């Protein structure tokens, strides 16, 4: 591999010498030359000026994540889901709750509908709690890191439609995130303090879920996973 790339480098050097020779050697394009130099300088300086005049919020300042951090983050999320599933929701940090709903039932039954296919909607976990007809719903959104930037905010909570005894989980639009990441030039990075190399990985598992507190005795139809207590 090294040999092939070096061979290519040699060939390009030799080709370069010939091209350069023809280019710079004995041609005399004088007048335009001044304009070329001047023009290039103006473009470069101009782009620096434009860069500094850009509005503050043009750039998201990236925290550089390492591969380990990304992996750790994914592990955390799995752990979090596992905890919830095992009925240890109280051990899960409230900061993950990004939206909350409350809903009062007319009868003792609840019909939960979601669009097909079922699994394209959000996972619904539920526990029995209380005896009144109030249902509490928390949405646990997970952190998503893409190209060294936290894009969690791009992922919206699912929309819920409430009927008399029904909750309909609206089909979510698929979220597409595109990120342009400007990395440090290698010559800058080499002498920077933060030496860890940035990760090209991302943490983006669909581990988000709705957590419902359903009163005891309410009959539930629909895709709800009751946690083991």
């Amino acid at each position, binding site marked *: 591999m090294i040999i092939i790339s070096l061979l290519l480098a040699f060939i390009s050097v030799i080709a370069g010498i010939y091209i350069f020779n023809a280019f710079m050697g*004995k041609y*005399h394009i*004088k007048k335009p030359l001044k304009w070329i130099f001047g023009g290039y300088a103006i473009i470069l300086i101009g782009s620096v000026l434009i860069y500094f005049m850009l509005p503050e919020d043009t750039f998201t300042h990236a925290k550089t994540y390492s591969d380990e951090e990304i992996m750790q983050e994914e592990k955390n999320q799995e752990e979090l889901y596992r905890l919830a599933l095992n009925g240890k929701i109280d051990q899960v940090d409230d900061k993950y709750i990004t939206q909350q709903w409350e809903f009062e039932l007319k009868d003792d039954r609840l019909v939960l509908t979601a669009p097909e296919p079922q699994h394209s909607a959000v996972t619904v976990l539920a526990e029995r709690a209380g005896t009144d007809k109030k249902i509490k719903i928390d949405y646990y959104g997970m952190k998503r890191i893409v190209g060294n930037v936290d894009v969690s905010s791009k992922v919206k909570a699912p929309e819920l439609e409430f009927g008399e005894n029904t909750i309909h989980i609206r089909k979510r639009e698929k979220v597409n995130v595109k990120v342009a990441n400007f990395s440090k030039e290698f010559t800058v990075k080499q002498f920077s303090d933060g030496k860890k190399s940035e990760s090209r990985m991302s943490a983006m598992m669909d581990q988000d879920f709705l957590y419902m507190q359903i009163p005891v005795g309410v009959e539930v139809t629909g895709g709800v996973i009751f946690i083991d207590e």
Partner: protein
Amino acid sequence: MHKGGWEMNVIECKGLTKVYGKTKALNDISFTLTENKITGLIGRNGAGKTTLLKIISGYLKETSGEVKVFSESPFNNLKVSANLIFVNEEMSYPGSLNLGEILKAAATFYENLDMELAERLMNYFSLDLRQYHTSLSKGMRSTFNTIVGISSRCALTVYDEPTSGMDAGVRKDFYRALLKDYIAYPRTILLSSHLLNEVEDILEDILLIKSGEKYLHMAMGDLKEYAIALSGRSVSITKWAEERKVIFQKSLGAGSSYIVVKNDLSALEIEQARNEGIELMPVSADDLCVYLTNKTIGGIDDVFSRS
């Protein structure tokens, strides 16, 4: 011009030899050039003129012997380079500079350069300052090179076949321009040519080389008296030829011969020769150089004679 009794040697060569592989381009050449003279370096093609000039100019290193320019070894010598300009066909300038810019650059290097003169000469020879060196015809390029050579007014100006490609009119003008500027600003000029007759008038000295060796080095005026031609009946000519070194000989048909010998005949001998019906004639410098540098004393005729 300060011609005192004390003259500085601008160029000194002692036993100078240059070998390329197996061929000896120069063989044991020794001579001295004093300052402020125009010397012509004359020789056939391949005699080693260019090699000699390049060694003097510091472009080539001598194989053995000694060469001194301004009392210093010229090879790789900055002082020599600063006081010498070498004008030849191969002179190359960056393609990105036009003639005016080349002159300006030359002026920064050669402090004596007379820009006004250069521009007037350019104008006279219909060269445009905005032209590019590479786009000039061969003759025009030579003209430009010689303009740089004249106007830079270096203490030692070396021309190697400067007029190649020029037309006759330009050649004459160039030599006159060189002479006029030399009279105004005397300097040492070394000029190589294989055509002696176009330069002989402006030369003070002549250095003749043949097959890499110095043949003679003398004042131009003396060269005219160096040899004498004898012409007459072959019988009497043969007698004269036996006693001295014959430089050139040819048969004029019907029992007559023409020989050129070194002019060391005493007045008595001249008288005697005349009495024998031999006609004595001078030999032009140009012819003499051709004779001297011929491989055989008969010249091309020898090829055709089967005696």
